[in-house]
């Protein structure tokens, strides 16, 4: 049974996380697959939480983020968006900047 507290812990203890449908190696939705592909291209470690792994994950996630759809992508504890926003941020260069800053911060701590 997942709670919002547990969702928060996962998001805060991993610099890069995606909550989506399916796993890193077997995404089960085109949008999740696209988000994973983008995170994969960043060259940093990231986690993927499969919302189908437990039926309580989706509700716990949605009540924590107040965002109705998946995937939901996080950088350094912050929800940056779904796959459309992440793709836009990749193209603008904002995603790489944000991720580099997040890892610099993590390494200096």
């Amino acid at each position, binding site marked *: 049974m997942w709670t919002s507290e547990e969702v928060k812990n996962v998001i805060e203890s991993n610099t890069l996380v995606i909550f989506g449908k399916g796993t890193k190696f077997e995404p089960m*939705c*085109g*949008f999740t697959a696209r988000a994973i592909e983008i995170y994969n291209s960043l060259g940093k470690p990231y986690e993927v939480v499969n919302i189908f792994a437990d039926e309580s994950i989706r509700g716990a996630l949605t009540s924590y983020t107040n*965002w*109705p*759809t998946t995937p939901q992508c996080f950088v350094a504890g912050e*929800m*940056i*968006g*779904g796959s*459309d*926003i992440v793709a*836009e*941020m990749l193209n603008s260069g904002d995603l790489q900047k944000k991720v580099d800053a997040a890892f610099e911060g993590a390494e200096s701590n």
Partner: protein
Amino acid sequence: MTDSELKSILENGIDDSTVVVRDMTGTMDHFEVEVVSPLFAGKSLIEQHKMVHAAVGHHLTTTIHALKITTRTP
């Protein structure tokens, strides 16, 4: 839902918006929308997408299974 129904839901829900809807699969549940509204000015992408989610409302977790969103200002 048809693409024209979704278009009017969005245009009614977001002031001064112009919306283009494409049914991605022909099954009336996977849509791509481009929403243009002056109300997006000065807002983050997250905030802009939240406005689209709010306009679509409960349809997003019922009849619509996938929604690809692009937002911009005129």
